[in-house]
C-alpha cells in the first residue's frame, strides 16, 4: 500500500522545502540585491531588503574600472581547458578501471580521492616554485593543468561509476565485431556514456570556475580569472560592499545560468547509481 500523504502534510512539506531552498539561495539573492544599492544603503543598519533606490551605478563603476571581458575570457579558458583535458585523460583511465580492474583498482581509486584531502596550501610553495622554474606563473596554461590535476580524481570517479553501469558484454560484442580498442571506446562506450560524460563535464566546469585558491595565488594580471576579479573588489575595510556585490554577481552569472539550464543533467550525474 502506498503511504498516505494528507493534503495538510503536503502543504507543510512544500513550505518547508521552499523555506530551505530560500535559505540556501539567500546569500546569492542578497549579493544580487546589494549590487543594485548605493554604497551607503549597502551597509545601512538595519539592512534594507527591497525598499531602496535601484541603481546600476555599481555595474558602471566596475565595468569602467576593470576589464570584465578579459577576466571572463580567462575563466572560460581555464575552466573549459582543464575540463576538456581532464575528460581526455579520465575516459581511458575510467575505462580500464571499470572494465579491466586489477587487484589494486579499488585502492588506486581511494588513493586518488585521498589526494583531495590534502590541504592545497601544503603544496603551494613547491608548485609556485615549479611555475617560476617553467616560466608559467600568471599563465593560463599553468592553471589549466593544475585545475585539471586537482579535479581529475573526481572526474575519474564519476566516469568510473557511469562506466560500471554499462554491461561488459556490449564492449565484448564490439571486440568480436572487429572494433579496435580505440573504435570500441569511440563508437560504443562513449556514445553510451554521453549522459554521464555530459554531467561530469558540467560539474567539473563549475568546480573549476569556482576554484579560488590556485587561481588567486598563481595569477596576477595576465591570466587572472573572475575569482581574481571579485577579489580585487574586496578590501580589508569592507567599504565597497555594493561594488563587490556587483562584481560577484557578474562573476557568478554565467555559471548560474549554465547551472539553471543543466539542473537535470547535474542531479542525475550526482545521484547516478544511487537511484535507479
Amino acid at each position: 500500500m502506498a503511504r498516505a500523504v494528507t493534503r495538510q502534510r503536503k502543504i507543510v512539506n512544500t513550505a518547508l522545502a521552499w523555506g530551505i531552498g530560500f535559505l540556501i539561495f539567500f546569500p546569492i539573492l542578497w549579493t544580487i540585491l546589494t549590487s543594485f544599492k548605493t554604497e551607503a544603503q549597502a551597509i545601512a543598519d538595519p539592512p534594507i531588503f527591497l525598499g531602496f533606490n535601484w541603481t546600476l551605478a555599481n555595474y558602471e563603476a566596475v565595468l569602467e574600472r576593470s576589464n570584465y571581458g578579459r577576466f571572463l575570457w580567462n575563466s572560460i579558458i581555464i575552466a573549459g581547458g582543464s575540463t576538456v583535458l581532464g575528460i581526455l585523460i579520465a575516459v581511458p583511465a575510467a575505462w580500464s578501471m571499470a572494465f579491466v580492474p586489477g587487484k589494486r583498482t579499488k585502492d588506486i581509486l581511494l588513493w586518488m580521492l585521498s589526494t583531495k584531502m590534502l590541504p592545497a596550501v601544503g603544496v603551494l610553495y613547491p608548485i609556485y616554485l615549479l611555475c617560476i622554474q617553467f616560466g608559467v606563473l600568471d599563465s593560463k596554461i599553468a592553471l589549466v593543468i593544475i585545475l585539471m590535476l586537482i579535479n581529475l580524481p573526481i572526474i575519474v570517479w564519476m566516469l568510473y561509476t557511469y562506466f560500471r553501469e554499462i554491461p561488459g558484454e556490449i564492449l565484448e560484442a564490439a571486440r568480436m565485431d572487429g572494433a579496435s580498442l580505440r573504435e570500441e571506446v569511440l563508437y560504443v562506450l562513449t556514445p553510451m556514456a554521453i549522459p554521464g560524460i555530459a554531467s561530469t563535464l558540467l560539474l567539473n566546469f563549475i568546480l573549476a570556475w569556482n576554484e579560488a585558491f590556485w587561481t588567486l595565488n598563481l595569477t596576477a594580471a595576465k591570466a587572472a580569472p573572475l575569482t581574481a576579479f571579485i577579489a580585487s573588489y574586496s578590501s580589508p575595510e569592507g567599504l565597497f560592499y555594493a561594488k563587490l556585490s556587483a562584481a560577484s554577481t557578474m562573476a557568478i552569472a554565467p555559471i548560474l545560468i549554465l547551472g539553471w539550464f543543466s539542473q537535470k543533467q547535474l542531479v542525475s550525474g550526482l545521484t547516478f547509481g544511487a537511484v535507479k
Partner: protein
Amino acid sequence: MGQIKLNQVSKSFGDVEVIPPLDLTIEDGEFTVFVGPSGCGKSTLLRLIAGLEDITSGHIDIDGTDATHVPPAKRGLAMVFQSYALYPHMSVRKNIAFPMKMAGVPAEEQQRRIEAAAKALNLTDYLDRRPGQLSGGQRQRVAIGRAIVREPSAFLFDEPLSNLDAALRVGMRLEISELHKRLATTMIYVTHDQVEAMTMADKIVVLRAGYIEQVGTPLELYYKPRNEFVAGFIGSPKMNLIKGPEAEARGAPTIGIRPEHFDVSTTEGAWEGTIGVAEHLGSDTFLHIHGVAGCDPMTVRVDGELSVKHGDRIFLTPQADKLHRFDAQGLRVE
C-alpha cells in the same frame, strides 16, 4: 573454412583451474554444442575460443593458423551473446552494419548484406528502430543478423535462447538450425539445455567441472554414454540409475535404463511398484513409480495414453538389450 583446434588448452583464474588442459577439434561446417551443468566451464571454453579470455596454457588453431595470441577482433569469428549485447544507441540497421563498418566493407555492399540479412530474419520493418523498442525474440534476431553479415569463419553462440520464453525458444532453435544448414558455417553453441543439444548438434561435447566427459553425435551419446554422468545428463526424462542387488543380478555395480525402455503392465512383470504421479500428455504418459529395484522414484515413459493413477500397482520389465552397465568408477562396461 572454419576448423578450430584446441591443443592442451587450459584456463585458471588465479589459483583456481577452471579448465584443465584439454584437446578438442571442431571440424569445418560442424554444429558443435557444448553442454553441461552450470559452472562446468562451457562458457569459459567458448570465451577462450573467442579470445575474450586469455588462455593459461596450450594453443588454439583456427583454420590451421595459430590464433592463441590473436585479439578477438582479428579471429574472424562472430559471437551471439546471452544478453544479445546490442548497441542501444544505434538503430537496428547500424547495429547490423557495425561489424562491416569496422571491416571497411564498401557502403553499397553493406547495404546489400543488411537487406539480405533483414529479409532472412524478418527484420525488414524494424531496421530503423532502436533495440529498446524490440521484443526479446527480435533482439536475438538482430544479434544473429549482426553475426551473419560479417561472414565469419565460425559462429559462437553463448546460451542465446535462455532469455526467451519457451515457445519462442523452440522457434528460434529451428531458425538457428536452418541457418546452419543454409550457411554450412562452423557453429559452436553453448547451452545447459540437453534438448537444445540433442536437437541441434552434429557433435555434442559434454563438460563437467572443466573436463570433457564425452564427445560424440547426439545418438552416440544417447545409446552409448561413456559414464554415469553423461548417461544421466543426456536424455529426457533422465535415465534411471539402479545400484544394489538388482544391478548385480544383471552383471554390474550400476545399471541404467532409460524411461522409454520398459515393458509396462498392470498385471505382471519383473518389478512391481506403486505409482506416485502419473502425467498424461496424450502423446505419452510419464509415470513416477515408488518401491522398485532401489531406484526411487523410477521414471517410465509409455507411448500414448495409459489409464493409471496415483496409488495403482504397476509392473515393469526392463528391456534387456537396452540396459547400460557401469563399473564401480561409473564408467561404461560393454
